């Protein structure tokens, strides 16, 4: 097997606060292969975005990476000096943020922002960079790019701005794109276009994509594999068809049960009772145990570690065959 583009091992991210240290990411591990799209899904505050920011090295104080390691094509990047990490950002990892309306600097022409980014990372002349910027705009589907390049961000619609943001993210041919809820702020019709654009770019350039979202529909459409996060941990990870059709973790089951289907029988959608714990009050044992219908004694004491089940990996005691005291 070839080396994965991104390999995250036992990542821990902590935020120092007045009430002590909060652990936003606890022992998260996953890989993304070349050309693969990994969907990261979970409720707000599950740690999806923080994971993305940790990978690109943009965790701001008081937050810090407290443990584990992040490797980009085998090279460790979580402990790089700031200046070297800056050179990785934008060049080897591109990032797309949630809100295209605020991602671009309103005072500069979009072309200038693209050219600036290209020239920061690639050794190109002004004219060559401008030509490349026009090509990029064409590639992300902006009509009349040679004209639009001199437009200001406010002259673009939301969907077009997100295309510009994507052009900025891919302008130095990165190996990895982190898309942090790239469609949340867009209209549904535009969402589909942006999703297929990201998918196409990933395929054409062999770029690995980490797609953070809380939209299971987007994940099902785009991703090859999916990681379900809960309270800063990966509850379940596996190929997207398997996880969607046959979720193992009770939380993943709850999430999939909450997706309405067109063919669906006329019944109420499943709702997971309660809400995710605050970071300052994560329960002992499995963090999901207070909301879990199948929780038993061990769940309140022991933290479940990831277990391999076929193509999937799940962190749940229900699948630990060793102890016999399974009382559901």
């Amino acid at each position: 097997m070839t080396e994965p583009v991104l390999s995250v091992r036992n990542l821990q991210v902590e935020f120092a606060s007045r009430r002590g240290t909060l652990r936003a990411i606890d022992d998260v591990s996953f890989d993304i292969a070349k050309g693969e799209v990994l969907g990261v899904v979970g409720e707000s505050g599950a740690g999806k975005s923080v994971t993305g920011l940790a990978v690109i090295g943009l965790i701001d104080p008081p937050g810090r990476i407290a443990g584990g390691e992040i490797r980009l094509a085998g090279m460790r990047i979580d402990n790089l000096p700031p200046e070297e990490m800056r050179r990785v950002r934008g060049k080897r990892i591109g990032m797309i943020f949630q809100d295209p309306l605020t991602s671009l600097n309103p005072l500069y022409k979009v072309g200038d922002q693209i050219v600036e980014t290209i020239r920061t990372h690639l050794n190109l002349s002004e004219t060559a960079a401008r030509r490349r910027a026009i090509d990029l705009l064409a590639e992300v589907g902006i009509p009349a790019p040679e004209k639009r390049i001199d437009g200001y961000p406010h002259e673009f619609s939301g969907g077009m701005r997100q295309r510009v943001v994507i052009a900025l993210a891919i302008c130095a041919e990165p190996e990895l794109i982190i898309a942090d809820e790239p469609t949340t702020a867009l209209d549904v019709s535009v969402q589909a276009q942006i999703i297929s654009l990201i998918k196409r770019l990933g395929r054409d350039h062999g770029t690995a994509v980490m797609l953070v979202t809380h939209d299971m529909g987007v994940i099902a459409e785009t991703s090859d594999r999916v990681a379900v996060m809960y309270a800063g941990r990966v509850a379940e990870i596996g190929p997207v068809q398997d996880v969607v059709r046959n979720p193992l973790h009770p939380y993943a089951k709850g999430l999939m049960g909450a997706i309405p289907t067109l063919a669906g029988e006329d019944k109420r959608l499943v709702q997971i009772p309660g809400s995710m714990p605050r970071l300052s009050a994560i329960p002992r044992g499995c963090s999901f145990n207070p909301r879990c219908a199948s929780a038993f004694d061990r769940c309140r004491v022991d933290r479940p570690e990831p277990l391999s089940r076929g193509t999937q990996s799940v962190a749940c005691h229900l699948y630990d065959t060793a102890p016999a005291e399974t009382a559901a």
Partner: protein
Amino acid sequence: MLAFTLRRAVQAIGVMFAVGIIAFSMFRFAGDPVNQIVSIDTSAAEREAVRKSLGLDDPVPVQFVRYFADAAQFKFGVSYQFRQPVSALLSERMPATLELAICATVFAMVFGILMGVYSALKRDTALAKLFQAVSLIGISLPTFLIGILLIYLFAVTLGWLPSFGRGEVVKLGWWTTGLLTLSGLKALIMPSITLGLFQMTLIMRLVRAEMLEVLRTDYIRFARARGLTTRAIHFGHALKNTLIPVITVAGLQFGSVIAFSIITETVFQWPGMGLLFVQAVQNVDIPIMAAYLLMVSLIFVTINLVVDILYTVVDPRLRATVGRAA
């Protein structure tokens, strides 16, 4: 763009008209001007002659139209105390005031922006905290006290700088400048600092607050995610976005700098329009007071106009709205 400028210019003329009415009514309400001109033992016939020669016996609307027509040509009548045309007195003193105001504003902008950016980027350093403390002093100490303290320290105790006046000036046509001689430059230092200190602290606090605000925005985060250098992010992307409110404040403050140079000019006996105005108040010299009022409002209105136009240069979004509105 042109329509926008024209519309703003028309508004400006409206404001000047209103100020003109106020300036004119000063003549009517601050006592009989003839009494100010003649001495106590002047006969009634002579008083009437003076009144007639000055046009003060005409109906009020006629007087107002005449005053306004004259003011539009920068004729403000004759000073009661100096017996000279007010416009000559003002233009003679205007270079001193403008030079002082410009130096004070440049001082305020340069140091205000530098200190503001520094204290936003290096928030927790001792120097940033010192700047904050200094800015508190600058904002709360009254101008005349700062002037007197500076005079005591640098003129009286150390003897480095002159305590009053403009030093040697050079005549360039009708303009006199102190910028070309050493004594003129030395004389400019303390009044500029005194006059500009408040503005400097204001700009510093504004730049700091705006900069901290801008550094939290999404497009700065995105700029970092694109791997731009810290320098490009701070000084290219963040500072430019900070400058819009700074232009407003600095521009509007330039008007106040000229208006409030009265105090600084009095403390340093600076031979500018402010000092002239203070003397005019003491002598109830209404033509000078009215002309000064008109001058200061003209400056304010012009600056407002320039600031409005400058916005559209900095912020492309305004260009669009302005274009649409026009």
